């Protein structure tokens, strides 16, 4: 009985997550980000995002797991632009997860906010609850003009209509890295061994990805940067993405 109680207690946060080896985390340095959108296309290529077409774009039905938000400050001529890449923040206390009636989204042991496409029934509650608006719905079954379908990544599902989708931190790459690590004497995944497509492409190296449970990882060091903050921190969603605000010379 006492072990049962112990076990129940172990399901409590944060102890539940502490047992595990990884907490995938990203830092994005806004002082490096130039808004070039290489990450946006990289994501589209890696994750089989559909080409929705002009008409559907006009209806705000685009699907971009990562997008660049732009904010102006001031008026001409003292006008400034701030870019901020917005992708799933993989919140530890994600509002979207409790929204799903069928467990299509939940939090896994690596600190990732999962999305199981083939479990989704499309209530879209998660998208309403998400304060970062990074969940995208498949309003249609999208097709690719032949032969564009040949570039589809076989490691990622092609989603059908009625399914919610979002950034997965490129789970397929994490999976491959873990697989390789396992082959290699069951070691843990090394820092830098796995990078999501957006991080890999970023020409200014504004994005850093890694395991924040590893104190030696690059991302752990970046997280300690005094410029670090989390977007909409007051909502207490505990995002896994730390942004570094713009600095001044």
């Amino acid at each position: 009985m006492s072990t049962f109680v112990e076990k129940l207690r172990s399901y409590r946060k944060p102890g539940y997550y502490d047992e595990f080896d990884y907490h995938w985390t990203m830092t994005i340095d806004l002082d490096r980000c130039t808004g070039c959108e290489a990450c946006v296309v990289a994501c589209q290529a890696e994750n089989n995002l559909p080409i929705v077409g002009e008409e559907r774009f006009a209806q705000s039905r685009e699907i971009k797991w990562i997008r660049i938000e732009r904010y102006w400050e001031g008026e001409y001529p003292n006008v400034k632009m701030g870019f901020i890449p917005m992708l799933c923040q993989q919140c530890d206390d994600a509002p979207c997860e409790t929204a799903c009636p069928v467990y299509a989204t939940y939090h896994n042991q690596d600190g990732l906010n999962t999305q199981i496409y083939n479990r989704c029934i499309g209530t879209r509650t998660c998208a309403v609850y998400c304060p970062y608006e990074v969940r995208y719905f498949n309003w249609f079954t999208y097709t690719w003009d032949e032969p564009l379908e040949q570039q589809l990544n076989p490691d990622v599902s092609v989603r059908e209509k009625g399914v919610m989708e979002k950034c997965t931190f490129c789970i397929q790459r994490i999976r491959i890295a873990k697989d390789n690590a396992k082959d290699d004497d069951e070691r843990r995944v090394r820092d830098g061994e796995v990078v999501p497509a957006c991080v890999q492409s970023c020409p200014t190296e504004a994005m850093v990805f890694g395991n924040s449970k590893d104190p030696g990882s690059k991302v752990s060091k970046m997280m300690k940067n005094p410029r670090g903050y989390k977007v909409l921190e007051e909502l207490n969603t505990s995002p896994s993405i730390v942004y570094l605000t713009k600095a001044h010379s």
Partner: protein
Amino acid sequence: MAVIGAFAYEEDFLAAAENLKASGFDNISLLSPLPLEEAQEVLGLGKSPVRRFSLAGAILGGICGFAMAAGTALVFILPTGGRTIITLPPFLVITYEMTILFGVLFTLLGFHFVSGLPAWRDKPYLPSANIDHFVVVVEGAAGEQVARAEAIIRDAGADEIRHVEEDQ
């Protein structure tokens, strides 16, 4: 053999019922087009056992509701939103709904159980009992009981008296 008597007025009907009861007829049914508390009193119907069904259902429902919610959470450990696996507030909502659902269903069961409905066997009945007549049915009367019952009913002022064979 069942004796049926139909009355146009409530007090005649009640009088007949009381007299029959007093004469030792236990197996009587009092049919009326609307619920009559007096008739129920004549038969000595107090608190209905239906309430026990309701209570049992509600308790069972509550337990099942919580067990279902908690059990589901434990079968696949899928944490959501940083909540604990057994998250009390939402599970209590489920418990609440299941309490009511089972309460209602058990009350329904109780109704059928206590009222003896659906009536599978042939039951003596007069259609006017569902319009504007009050009907006394003496069931299981045999021999001289038939005449005695009939007399009591007629004395009370019945409009119509019938005898019906009951099949066992």
